[in-house]
């Protein structure tokens, strides 16, 4: 007979709001929160409470692994969230219009299924960045992990944008159905990207790579095409924005060699069935 204890790892021992209010210092529309002693849910409870008190800007200090920052704050207008430390997984998951700035590194799942807003990371990010992202912009100064921008999608003028300053691991843009991904490779010593399976199953959107990439690193469903006038306009716009956030020289970045990847078909798997 199996008998095991059960403890909710996430909700267990979460303190009530009145016990944690002391961690927030509110001055006008700005709240400063010391997160060092707060659990995931406590921090998000506290932020929600602050928003209800009229807070429009957060400064979170000593953040260390707290998940879902920004996720619960939908339908409350646009907020600004500045994070010092390392936010936990799913930073800005389902984000709905806020601007998040991380003065440090981020973990997995940045901008997961994000709807709108901006996330700026002054460092690197982990795996599954911008997964199923539907709108808004993400700027990562350094590199990202595996499975970046999987199944990013777009609808009409709602086009998500991801700019990564460094490099990516495998499966970048897998199943991508829309949106713009720009991978700048600024940290590549030999100028060669290492990722494999780039754009496997891609059927929408566009990936711009700065640096060298060999055909064997690409998925079967993407093709390399020449950049046109419009592409350079897109790059100037978003690389310019990227450079301004991290005090970099946009012209110098844009002087590099860019490769444009687009899907070969909107229907990559249309011909494998017998009707």
């Amino acid at each position, binding site marked *: 007979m199996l008998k*095991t204890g059960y403890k909710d790892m996430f909700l267990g021992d979460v303190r009530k709001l009145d016990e944690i209010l002391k961690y927030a210092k509110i001055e006008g529309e700005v709240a400063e929160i010391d997160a060092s002693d707060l659990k995931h849910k406590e921090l998000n409870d506290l932020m929600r409470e602050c928003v209800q008190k009229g807070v429009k800007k957060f400064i979170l200090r000593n953040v260390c692994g707290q998940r*879902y920052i920004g*996720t619960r704050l939908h339908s409350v207008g646009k907020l600004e969230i500045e994070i010092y430390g390392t936010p936990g997984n799913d930073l800005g998951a389902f984000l*709905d219009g806020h601007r998040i700035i991380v003065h440090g590194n981020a973990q997995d799942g940045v901008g997961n299924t994000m709807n709108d807003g901006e996330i700026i990371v002054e460092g690197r990010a982990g795996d599954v960045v911008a997964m*199923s992202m539907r709108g808004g912009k993400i700027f990562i100064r350094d590199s990202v992990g595996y499975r970046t921008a999987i199944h990013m999608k777009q609808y009409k003028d709602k086009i998500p944008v991801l700019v990564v300053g460094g490099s990516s691991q495998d499966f970048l843009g897998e199943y991508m*159905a829309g949106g713009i991904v720009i991978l700048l490779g600024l940290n590549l010593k030999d100028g060669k990207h290492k990722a494999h399976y780039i754009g496997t199953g891609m*059927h929408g959107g566009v990936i711009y790579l700065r640096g060298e990439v060999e055909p064997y690193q690409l998925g079967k469903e993407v093709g390399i095409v020449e950049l046109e006038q419009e592409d350079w306009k897109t790059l100037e716009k978003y690389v310019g924005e990227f450079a301004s956030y991290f005090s970099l020289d946009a012209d110098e970045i844009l002087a590099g060699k860019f490769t444009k990847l687009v899907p070969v078909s909107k229907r990559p798997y249309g011909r494998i069935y017998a009707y």
Partner: protein
Amino acid sequence: MDMKMKSHLLPEFLVERIDERCTRCKVCVKQCPFDVHYYDEELDRMFAREEKCVGCQRCVVYCPRNALIVRPHPSTYRPNNYWTHEAIQDIKKQAETGGILLTGCGSDRPVRIYWDHILLNASQVTNPSIDPLREPMELRTFLGRKPDALELEVNEDDVELKTELYPNVMIETPILFAGMSYGALSYNAFKALAMAAKEFGTLFNTGEGGMPKEMREEFGSNTIVQCASGRFGVDPEYLNCAAVIEIKIGQGAKPGIGGHLPGEKVTATISATRMIPEGTDAISPAPQHDIYSIEDLSMLIYALKEATNYEKPVCVKVAAVHNIAAIASGIVRAGADIVAIDGFRGGTGATPKIMREHVGIPVELALAAVDRRLREEGIRNKCSIIVGGGIRCAGDVVKAIALGADAVYIGTAALIAMGCTMCQKCHTGKCAWGICTQDPVLSKRLNPNVAAKRLVNLLRGWSLEIKDVLGGMGINAIESLRGNRDHLRGVGLEEWELEVLGIKGAGE
């Protein structure tokens, strides 16, 4: 080189026309989306291209003179128990196309149907049955996590509940409509499910195709919204309009694989609901690429709870497969409030035949194993269990609940109520009954008000039957039946099957 190849396939159906009844009104020509019937002006006669007939019976029902009979074609290969007619036809089909065989609906293979080997109990002499015509019978069900214990504060003339309850959703009957997306279904069929759920006080499930904006306010509180691997149309508003959020990991008709809604079905309104461009394939990858472990699943469960302020139960739907009990335990420990298990018989709009026919296990065994395991681990109260995948009648519902389910999902049965005849051609997009199609002419055939009425009638009929059976058992609330396996007996089952089901053999 492009060569012409004569098809070696035999027609599946024979179309017989009683000529003296036929008035050449050509209703059959208009009704058939598969282009079977045609009129020869010179001969003044109706003919049929039988090789195209799928046996959907639309023409038969709509022929004003009852002049048509459509039945399985008598032509057959030399009978062979091993190389069956179907096996030979499938090989020929693949030899002609070189593709994966595609089909719709759930598996019709002769794998043992455990429902039919389980019989129910009734009260005789030693305990009285209850008359459901006289006594109130309770079918109301609450879905969601329940606390381990209730803490009460008793004052002089007042009792106060101190325990903070988890979010639960109330349904009037333990029957829900299973996930079927707008895209797989026509708008009218999708809306009919929503209308029926609202009228009867139960829930329908959006599947993974999003929820049309104009339906959110009216039907949101009767909706289970799905968050699946494609994440189509998933935004904070979609999540927050619903009663329950379901993470779809797997589906009984195609465990372990994803799905494609072909580009030709992605019309303007479907593209707006799914938030993808018109005409693109809507591809749902096989896994959710942010879930590679129970830990990752937990991360998404709580992401959804965060996104909805912990106000809604989160359900995780999986296909019934090997080790399902351990999987379910992991799901509950990951924080799910509801576990949905979809069995081997589960239906679909399109699936590779090989997945439908060969992958997964019957839901009866999966359910019994999961319920037992969660009880043994002392965590059964942490979640509700919903089972689906081939629930055909109220008898199946009662047996499912006695095996430990809180409620059942019905998909195929709901479609049949609306008009489906199980021709298994959903994947062609040509549904003659206007259910599984995006063709505006065909989908107009289904009046959502009439279809909703049929669905409500079905729910009412089944609910009355469940009350009858409960009364016969001497039980007056569905709560008392849940996991009550004493009311079940097996017939014609092996020892190991009885053991997995946790029931005694008949006569014991």
